[in-house]
């Protein structure tokens, strides 16, 4: 037993250090192997960086004042993988859509912002002032902010685009003037629907006719045409609902639109319920006669119920022609116009106070021609002629104007408007008379930041 123990101790003393040495050698070998791999990787990295440096050096020198040696005509293409469509996991991953966009550098927003300032003014006769019968009722002989608008717009995600506009303006209500802050528009557009369709949902300016969808600061004249103001009010047809457009694959351009809205328009469609919605429609086509001449034609319709639950239907036709000489940066001549026909039921009371439902068929139109011989200056004239949608009578007006645009983002307009009404009461809410109105109109508007390109 004693001998066995001695042998075991001896074996332990002799073998353990040997085993330990063998393990250490193995660990060293592994470490060396790892170092060799790392060296190979580092070498590969250096080679890749050298390659990249060569490519960068082959591209233009970013110092135009001191040109360097001529780079080779054909530089190596920069590695550029196409943007792969986002996977479901990508889409599900939490994001901060309104945070600053870090990957492209700090300071970049994920959407565009713009501010529009639109100031208008007018000078007119005292009697018109007293009657609140001018183009801007209740704000005669004043210079005021008509539309100070802050807008945010951009892609929401790969499938939709959003736009929000908040505006402040001086308004006249119940005999008082005050600055009113409110929502001008807020909507999203689904861009990737099938079969050439697109849907716009939210609170928007309806695409009825030519100018209803245009914001006040972008109008071709200082004021909105009389027929549109008479039929749809000073704000125009601005509604909450949905618009669906379809561009069929035809050899010519055709856009078909149908809209369904609450019906919140105080002049024509005030029912305000989807149980009796305001339904709109529009067909728009375009002919490019040649590179210089182009014409757009449209037909629109809207049917809904008035505030007192009576059917009202308005149909419109519009046309716009532009002549842009070859190489010009702006059109030399623009001719456009719109005609509206209204068919509505109204309640009329006789002398005894007995009400009777009657049908009112009304018509109105406007047309304007504009000449822009220089980039900074243009001049034009607009003619308006419209019946009143409910009351008897009509009015016509003529408005010559000039505009000066120091840049794309700043504009001044000066106009003169002569209006004649068949009945003085038509526009009077206070005292005095406003049958004949002469006004000098002026406008200054600016754009800060982003503003989308102007359509035709």
């Amino acid at each position: 037993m004693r001998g066995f123990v001695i042998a075991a101790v001896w074996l332990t003393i002799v073998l353990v250090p040997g085993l330990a040495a063998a393990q250490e050698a193995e660990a060293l070998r592994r470490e060396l192997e790892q170092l060799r791999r790392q060296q190979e990787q580092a070498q590969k990295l250096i080679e890749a960086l050298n390659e990249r440096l060569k490519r960068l050096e082959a591209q233009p020198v970013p110092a135009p004042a001191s040109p360097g040696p001529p780079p080779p005509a054909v530089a190596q293409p920069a590695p550029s993988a196409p943007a792969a469509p986002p996977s479901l996991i990508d889409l599900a991953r939490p994001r901060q859509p309104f945070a600053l966009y870090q990957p492209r550098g700090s300071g970049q927003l994920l959407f565009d912002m713009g501010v529009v300032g639109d100031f208008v003014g007018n000078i007119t006769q005292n009697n018109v002032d007293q009657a609140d019968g001018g183009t801007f009722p209740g704000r005669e002989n004043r210079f005021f902010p008509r539309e100070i608008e802050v807008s945010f717009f951009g892609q929401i995600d790969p499938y939709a685009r959003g736009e929000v506009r908040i505006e402040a303006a001086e308004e006249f209500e119940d005999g008082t003037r005050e600055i009113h802050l409110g929502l001008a528009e807020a909507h999203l557009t689904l861009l990737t629907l099938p079969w050439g369709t697109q849907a716009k949902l939210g609170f928007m300016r309806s695409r009825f006719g030519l100018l209803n969808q245009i914001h006040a600061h972008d109008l071709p004249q200082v004021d909105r045409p009389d027929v549109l103001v008479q039929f749809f009010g000073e704000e125009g047809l601005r509604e909450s609902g949905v618009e669906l457009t379809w561009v069929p694959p035809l050899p010519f351009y055709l856009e078909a639109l149908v809209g369904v809205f609450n019906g919140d328009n105080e002049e024509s469609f005030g029912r305000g319920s989807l149980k009796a919605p305001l339904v709109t429609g529009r067909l728009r086509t375009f002919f490019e006669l040649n590179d210089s001449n182009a014409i757009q034609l449209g037909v629109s319709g809207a049917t809904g119920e008035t505030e007192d639950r009576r059917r009202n239907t308005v149909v419109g036709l519009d046309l716009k022609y532009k002549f842009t000489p070859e190489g010009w940066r702006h059109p030399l001549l623009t001719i456009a116009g719109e005609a509206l026909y209204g068919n509505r039921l109204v309640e009329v009371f006789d002398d005894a106070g007995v009400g009777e439902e009657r049908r009112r068929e009304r018509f109105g139109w406007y047309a304007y021609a504009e000449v822009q011989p220089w980039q900074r200056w243009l001049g034009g004239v607009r003619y308006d002629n419209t019946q009143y949608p409910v009351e008897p009578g009509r009015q016509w007006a003529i408005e010559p104007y000039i505009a000066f645009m120091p840049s794309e983002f700043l504009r001044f307009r000066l106009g003169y408007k002569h209006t004649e009404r068949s009945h003085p009461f038509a526009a009077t809410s206070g005292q005095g008379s406003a049958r004949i109105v002469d006004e000098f109109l002026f406008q200054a508007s600016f754009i800060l930041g982003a503003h989308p390109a102007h359509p035709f």
Partner: protein
Amino acid sequence: MRRIVTTIVLLLAVGAGLPGAAVEGADKVRVVTTIPDLKSLTEAVGGDLVDVESLMRGTQNLHEAEVRPSMMLKLRRAQLLVENGAELDAWVDVAVQGANNGEIVRGGRGRVEAGRGVPLLEVPSARVDRSMGDVHPGGNPHFSLDPGLAPIITQNILDGLARVAPQHRAAFERNRAAFLSRLDEHMGRWTKLMEPVRGAKVVVYHPDFIYFLTRFGLVQLGTVEDRPGIPPSPQHLVTLIRQMKEQGVKALLVEPWNDVRLANRVAEEAGAKAYVMASAVGAVKGADNYIAAIDYNVTTLVKALAR
């Protein structure tokens, strides 16, 4: 009236039933580019397999486009939209919105930004605002007519074409290689031609040519525009003319869509001459494709500066 309505309804019904390709009557990849330089490069890569249209013409100011429904019609049928990027053709977004074509919306499979990976020049190093005119915060976007950048641009186009027509990738790659090889041959000749005028100073109307000038070792002394997109003030012109005289500038380069008369007057006052350049493919007669446009510019400059 009834007949007209019936005809319209029939047209719509037929149109709705037909796929876009059937209307076109062709089996090619339908590509729309924003500017004609990209049309020419796309044709070079796509060859017979593509049918390319450009929304703008070379004679137009590429910054400013009036978005016409005819653009929307082209985009409605497009499988691929190739845009320049760097804010030169940001107007195309409005046209795309009216085209109702989900394939080419921003982020879509059929959208190509040609300038991706291009190292931009004149990137502002300080805060910019509109008091400096129509500045591009990301850098100068007029890179498309720099032959040295054609490999990057055509690679982006190739990637886009291969996304919508992967079966033709090999053919696109062959076309691109052949085009770049041709361009390389021309580049050797252009470099040789420009060697004697290397280092010469020129004045431009709008900073359209900075990439081209840098490529061939020329120096842009100044611009007729006081600030980009803003018509020049008399004071600025007086200073510019004085500088041109002092520095012995022989050539003032102007785009066909800009004020050529003013360019002529300034050049005359400074003892130089104004030259209408191919600011884009198709901008002047004889600049009908990418190589021809660069050739026109090289030849014009060599003649102008050798006077």
